[in-house]
């Protein structure tokens, strides 16, 4: 199973080279190089990165907070289930 070669290696060398060329062309087309922003008030990289980072912050913060609350409730549920069985003191560490 582990001996399956990666797909690129299966190709003949000339094709591999053209594939790499194609990838390089795609990288060259990576849009920040051809950034054309006619309505950008500020075309500074710092400003664009600030938008990007605050977007990431605003997107992940609520998800992390929700995950935190769900994890807390899940632990509470486990603890109360154990208390109900009466076989473990409430503050003992979790079995798993």
């Amino acid at each position, binding site marked *: 199973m582990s001996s399956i070669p990666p797909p690129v290696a299966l190709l003949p060398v000339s094709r591999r080279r053209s594939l790499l060329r194609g990838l390089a062309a795609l990288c060259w087309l*990576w*849009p*920040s190089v*051809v*950034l054309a*922003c*006619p*309505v*950008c*008030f*500020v075309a500074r990289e710092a*400003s*664009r990165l600030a*938008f*990007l980072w*605050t*977007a990431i912050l*605003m*997107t992940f913060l*609520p*998800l992390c*907070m*929700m995950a935190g609350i769900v994890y807390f*409730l899940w632990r509470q549920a486990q603890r109360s289930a154990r208390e109900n069985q009466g076989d473990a003191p409430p503050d003992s560490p979790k079995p798993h």
Partner: protein
Amino acid sequence: MAEPATAHAQHPHNGAGHDHAHHDEGFFKKYLWSTDHKMIAFQYLFTGMLMAIIGGYFAYAFRMQLAYPGASVPGYGTVSPADYLMLVTNHGTIMIFWVAMPVLIAAFGNYLIPLMIGCDDMVFPRLNRLSYQIFLLSAIILIASFFVPNGGFSGAWTAYPPLSSQAAYHLTPWGASLWVLAVALEFVAFLMGGINFVTTVMNSRAPGMTPLRIPMVIWMIVIASILFMASVGPLVAGAVLLLFDQVLGTHVYDPNHGGDPLLWQHLFWFFGHPEVYVVLLPAMGVVAEVITVFARKKLFAYKTVLYTAIATGIISFFVWAHHQFVAGIDPRMANIFTVTTLIISIPIAEMVFVYLATLIGGSIRFTTPMLWALGFLGAFLVGGVTGIFLGSSGSDIYFHDTYFVVAHFHFTFFPIAFIGSFAAITYWFPKMFGRMMNETLGKIHFWGTIIPVNGIFLPLFIAGLAGDHRRIYSYMNFPDSAKPFLQDLRIMATVSLCVLIAFQFVFLYNFIVSLLRGPKADKNPWNANTLEWTAESPPPHGNFAEMPSVHRGPYEYGAPGRDQDFWPQNAAN
């Protein structure tokens, strides 16, 4: 988990703000100052319906202007350019924030959550009452903004600065500030409602109502509430900054003084796109309830729908910048958001497939609610599929701000806000008011709505493809847009709208006459399983004569070896 519910049942007379068994209250106390979740739901429902009439009237006025530019509109008068912008702006605002949200989430959330999870009221009844009062205040402020000097706000419902932030552009300082204030207050109201919904479902479920036995519509409303509360903060922050710009003269959004107008879009759409799913999910939940009951079949994959809904909620935080592809955002960001936008269609499609799989092999009854539910699936599909073109940052450059966008989001929002609400109203009407609606009139209303909707928005797709810009007062001023072919499409859309509005009177007639003189409904007219159908129709204060306990999931239809094809959740065996 059942502690609050049983505690209320124990002390029916001293619960916080409860006035159970006091049926001789005055009109004011009973209808306007009630803490009963059902009465608050009715308040939301009727306010939402009233606002829908206003929003529909606005749509009628500006559509008439687009089809017959400059002509006097019967019932409105001549639409001036300023009027036109005001009408378009407030049509959008009203339909999204004062119709879709209050009817689907607030009204049905309030009505269904305690009844379906088996408790006697919300956890915080007085907070609930306050929530409606703030909502009503926001509606009054919005309506008042139409009558201030220079009229209501006219900077489009998305309120992009500098159009919205500087009086030099929007020309109506009072209208703009009242608009922002109304929207902010409305969010405060729904924040209170959402806190109530989540807390109630968390802590007041009937004994045995485990998470995987909760009816799908309740799950959807809870997920939607969480989505709303997680996404609304940045928008309120943006609105605060906008109010400061408008009223106190700061320059946060003013590029001439170091501000950045793109900032508003950043904050607005962070809320704006999850908002779509906030209203979509409850409608999806309603459809799940209606389809299972009238196909007499178990929901095809309960857990899949639930996990899909959660996944939708999570992914909906990753898609919002697709509204700004042409606004000048970083193209790297546009790339990411294109991919995520296309990804989010997967869970939604999955839900639709589950509903279709539920229908297969069912003994389908084409009642009015069922027709609405099926109509929802069909119409929403068109909206979803056309969204793919707008979600791709390349094609969006062409489609942006054309009528293609307008047709796309109306094909999503109309099914959500209206078809979904009609499904819910016709399905729960017997429970809400204790009387049956007229089926014949209901079907006439259905066909009289679903056909004109396509008549309105399908032509607009074509007009959008032809390049019609969406914010034009009169196309006659532009030779390329004034072609007879395009004008015919606009006239077709407007005529269809008039037909649509005419058929809504059938609904209003049916609603009012059934409310007053419809045949009495028994407890469970649809032979449904969920807990609300075990209460009286309409349920009294405190909902249940004896608090139910739950023994099985909500969709046990057609279980083998039973006399009846349904198996109520609270039946012991």
